[in-house]
């Protein structure tokens, strides 16, 4: 049995609207990052892998099992949806119990597994707390625990860090990295920091198309020599914002340090080492997206 996910020429439609165009990816053991803006098609791809959505055409095999065989696939995957919620009257223990039953675990195995997982995600003491009363971070940890109930070969986590505070986010990334040691973990995010910290292989999706697939290093290399910094006065900023693809800003008094992407060096600017943010922006930029800056500015 091979330990990889193979996606070939996947197309997906919602009615007449096409959500995924000819997506082909090969995903191997370890963390795999899916990067893209909100609405780019990440969730669609992940739901398709989790057998929640039907594909239009193309081929998907998960560890050698064709995706059409939903029952078998569900045995070997764990899925954490973007928004995690449970039947309102259930507490943490009951939710785990029910989901374990649905995962096909029998009595003894179930109890052991639930205990171990709750301990792993640090929720043992909150066993009797109602799921809906958990904090965002706790909910996400419970989400991971439930996705691991069947000890899956593949873990699919959709936007796991959205809405978490920085401390929770770091903790969560570490947890995922730990899990990824012997599994395929597919992580989607629109937060570049998540990828930077955890993934080696990534794909960038934009408007339903894969615009980059490779390692983080390769992505960085490809952007070499196209990222610059410059210090400008606040007054100049509005005009520069219109002209340049600014990836980050740092204000100091009435001066602003900006980082931007450009094809050639311009006057007063200095070339610098690209980071993933820059590279990501560059890819989006070159794939014909113009209006990204306003949107992502705040998020990074």
């Amino acid at each position, binding site marked *: 049995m091979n330990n990889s996910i193979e996606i070939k020429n996947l197309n997906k439609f919602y009615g007449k609207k096409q959500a995924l165009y000819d997506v082909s990816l090969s995903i191997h053991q370890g963390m795999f990052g899916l990067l893209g803006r909100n609405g780019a098609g990440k969730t669609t791809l992940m739901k398709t892998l989790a057998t*929640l959505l*039907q594909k239009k055409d193309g081929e998907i095999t998960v560890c050698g099992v064709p995706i059409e065989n939903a029952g078998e696939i569900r045995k070997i995957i764990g899925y954490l*949806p973007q928004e995690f*919620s449970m039947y309102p009257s259930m507490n943490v223990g009951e939710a785990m119990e029910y989901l374990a*039953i*649905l995962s*096909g675990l*029998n009595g003894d195995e179930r109890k052991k597994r639930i205990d171990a997982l709750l301990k792993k995600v640090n929720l043992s003491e909150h066993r009797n707390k109602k799921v809906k009363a958990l904090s965002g971070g706790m909910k996400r940890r419970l989400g991971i625990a*439930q996705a691991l109930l069947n*000890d899956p070969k593949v873990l699919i986590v959709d936007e796991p860090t959205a809405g978490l505070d920085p401390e929770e986010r770091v903790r969560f990334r570490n947890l995922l990295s730990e899990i990824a040691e012997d599994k395929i973990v597919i992580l989607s995010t629109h937060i570049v920091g998540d990828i930077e910290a955890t993934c080696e292989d990534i794909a960038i999706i934009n408007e339903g198309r894969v615009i980059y697939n490779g390692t983080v290093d390769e992505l960085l290399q490809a952007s070499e020599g196209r990222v610059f910094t410059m210090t400008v006065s606040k007054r100049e900023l509005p005009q520069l914002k219109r002209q340049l693809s600014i990836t980050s800003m740092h204000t100091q008094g009435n001066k602003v340090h900006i980082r931007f992407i450009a094809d050639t060096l311009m006057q007063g600017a200095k070339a610098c080492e690209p980071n993933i943010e820059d590279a990501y922006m560059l890819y989006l930029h070159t794939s014909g997206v113009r209006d990204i800056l306003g949107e992502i500015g705040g998020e990074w």
Partner: protein
Amino acid sequence: MNQSKERFPVLEIAKINLRHNSLLSIAVAAVLCLLVPLLIGTSNLDQKSAAMPLEMFVSLIGIVLLTPVFQPEQNEEINDLVSSKYCSTERVYLIRTVYSVTAAVLLIAIFTVYMKMCSCDVTPVMALGTAADAVFLGSIGMLTSALTGNTVIGYMPPLLYYALNIGMGPKLGSFYLFSMAIGDYKAKIWLFAAGVVMTAASLLYQKIRRRTI
């Protein structure tokens, strides 16, 4: 991991669902049954009069019990979560349907026995006739809930049909809900058959809908 073993723990799923997803509707149905003797006479009735509390009131528990069968997973987040698990959600629906019908039949049986004890001329056939009404009304709710994805909308058509029966009376022929009160038991066969068909259709629709999205 024993995942190669095919497991589908019907009883465990039923137990948890009963407790967390169906307790309220069963409680409401029971309260409804308890209210009936306060609203309408349930003692010393001949067969036709005894049909009234059964057909006109007790049968309403079908709406209460069956319409919300799909409700818990109509929350999209919960749906995404449980659908990714090995045990398919359609089977969970089936389990809920079966125990909801069982609960309806049980409550109706208890009520019929109660009426018998109050010296009403009731027969087991009348209890079955009432169950047919309940299944029919409930299945209208289930079907609407499945088609619209919204349980609240699901409650509308069965109540409307109930009102129509009050308004139109025996003109509804084989689908007249209160037929036992006029001595007609044949209509119940039609009602029950239609109820089963609609229940099956709504379960099937859930399956197809899930397949095609």
